[in-house]
């Protein structure tokens, strides 16, 4: 097995999807000769040619709208939006069409498309290049939302997203792109959507996290007896695995990079309160980004959940 970083693992997944299935098309801004601004699509244009891997005009709504048509026509478009902050221009296409075509056409037309996008903070980039807007996509039935956290699940989740019969938003934690390396199986494999992963087993607290927060949580909780659940898919989320862990530990810490109010963690907290409150020994705690406009690099570290804030929350929970 080769040791790959996240970029290489996703690139390998795309390469294998293109090689296996001639319905797969990869497109977006700068994805062809340039290989994507983060090089995630490197060499794919050269290998598969202009018909399979191509650049688009600079038009995010256009990219997603065209992908909707391609998918309904029977192909498997994998569109890249250069940074997730630019998907706002395509929200109409995602909400109004990608999510609804199956229902609107009573199943005659479906929308098996994947929208890949670099997501999240911690890379010292300009405004709108570090958005954590996963919750927007989770509020729209008909769309799946996937966030890998390691090179291994990045590849498996990508291939599962491409194989899925419905639209999938695949959010790539930009900070992890070249930070993590691990052995990744060479052959294609699927990491099932809708399933969480126990990143670390433990007894006293359940920590729920996804994407780049996994790496932070693993470091923060290194000296604590905690169970760390990597959600992997946010919508639909793996209620059973989460609730089983809560039953086991009785304490819950949710760590998310996005602002607190109406963040995805709120849905998790509500679900646990609704379905497993009798197992709780302590209030549910959330460590999140603040309810502020995401700051530029000089203030960024004050906003992102830190090791200190996570440890303080764990200490607080363990006092109960």
């Amino acid at each position, binding site marked *: 097995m080769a040791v790959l970083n996240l970029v290489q693992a996703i690139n390998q997944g795309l390469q294998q999807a293109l090689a296996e299935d001639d319905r797969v098309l990869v497109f977006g801004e700068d994805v062809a000769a340039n290989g994507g601004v983060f090089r995630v699509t490197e060499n794919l244009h050269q290998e598969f040619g202009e018909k399979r891997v191509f650049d688009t005009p600079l038009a995010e709504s256009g990219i997603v*709208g065209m992908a909707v048509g391609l998918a309904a026509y029977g192909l498997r478009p994998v569109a890249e939006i250069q940074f997730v902050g630019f998907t706002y221009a395509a929200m109409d296409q995602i909400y109004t*069409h990608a999510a609804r075509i199956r229902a609107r056409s009573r199943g005659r037309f479906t929308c098996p498309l994947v929208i890949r996008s670099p997501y999240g903070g911690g890379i010292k980039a300009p405004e709108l290049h570090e958005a954590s807007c996963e919750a927007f996509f989770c509020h729209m039935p008909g769309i799946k939302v996937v966030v890998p956290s390691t090179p291994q699940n990045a590849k498996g989740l990508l291939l599962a997203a491409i194989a899925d019969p419905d639209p999938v938003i695949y959010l790539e934690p930009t900070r992890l792109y070249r930070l993590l390396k691990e052995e990744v199986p060479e052959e294609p494999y699927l990491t099932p959507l809708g399933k969480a992963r126990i990143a670390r087993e433990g007894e006293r607290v359940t920590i729920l996290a996804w994407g780049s927060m996994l790496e932070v949580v693993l470091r923060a909780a290194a000296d604590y007896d905690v169970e760390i659940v990597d959600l992997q898919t946010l919508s639909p989320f793996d209620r059973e695995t989460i609730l089983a862990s809560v039953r086991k530990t009785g304490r819950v810490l949710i760590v998310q990079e996005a602002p607190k109010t109406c963040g995805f963690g709120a849905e998790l907290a509500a679900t646990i309160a609704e379905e497993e409150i009798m197992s709780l020994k302590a209030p549910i705690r959330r460590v999140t980004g603040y309810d502020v406009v995401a700051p530029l690099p000089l203030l960024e570290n004050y906003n992102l959940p830190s090791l200190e804030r996570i440890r303080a929350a764990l200490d607080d929970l363990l006092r109960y």
Partner: protein
Amino acid sequence: MPRATIASFQIERLEILGPQGEVDAELLPDLSDSQFLRLYELLVLTRLADERALNLQREGRLGTFPSSLGQEAAQVGSGFALKSQDWVFPSFRELGVFLCLDYPLSSYYRYWAGDERGLLCPPELNIFPINIAVGTHLLHAAGVALGARYRQEMLVAVPYLGDGGTSKGDFYEALNMAGVYQLPLVAICQNNQWAISVSRQHQTAAQTLAQKAVACGIRGIQVDGNDVLAVYQATREALERARNGGGPTLIECETCRMSDHTTADDARRYRDPAELERWQARDPLLRMQRFLESRGLWVASEQAEREAALKQSVDEAVVAAEAVEPPQVADMFTYTCAELSSRQRQQLKEAEDGRT
């Protein structure tokens, strides 16, 4: 030469049928007498089915309905030129196009009565579901056109929009994509002068809507949208060009919405009745009728019988639409995604049990 004209453009307008039914013989499409008659029949059928929908709405048997009154030629002329393999992307005021393609009128009525099943397109047709979000669906046509070229299928993607739709960003993004990739796409714009209460003059400072194609490097043409023969001819030419790799076209059909925007609107609040009188003189049905009469294809005494047969088919569609069993609660879930999550399965059970 510090200042020079480096590009200039012209916009063509096509008219074939005069107000009294006279035609420019050189421009007349090479259709048979029975095809001319069929065109007229489809115009009449569209008007009758539309009228019937308005009556059903007043009786509470349909929901809010957007009438096609006055726009029959733009719809029938373009719809008649389509081939069954073409993909159509309607907006919400294309009754005549649906009828040209033999889409079941009963399904069309059911949709406007609030039943999603009315949009289930028969397998032999490729009509995308009615699109309410103005102008956004041209991109889907671009995607299908791109896919068709990839698969080397000889189809054309044909989105319909209105004058309001040309103000949307997605309209431009789609035509721009169509230009860049030289896609087999023909966009039919029914410029009916009104986007609810906002007039064509307030929609854009551009002299024509057809010229919006110019900025995308694609062909644009304006046609007399109340001239069914001109609309047919322009559409047929554009489809042939697209099918043969000649790239996309935007066709502006200049017509007028003679009705309110929908049954929920009252155009008397914002529109001068004199405008309707002017357009009334250009009524698309009357012009085609005069043309047929001049060729000995239309006889006044036969009109009532023809209309009765068409009305009969409309009546049958109404009966068929209202005979359908109501949808199941489960349908809400069935068509949201291919496989339900555990939470959705639980919600479905709650909905079916009538619990909260």
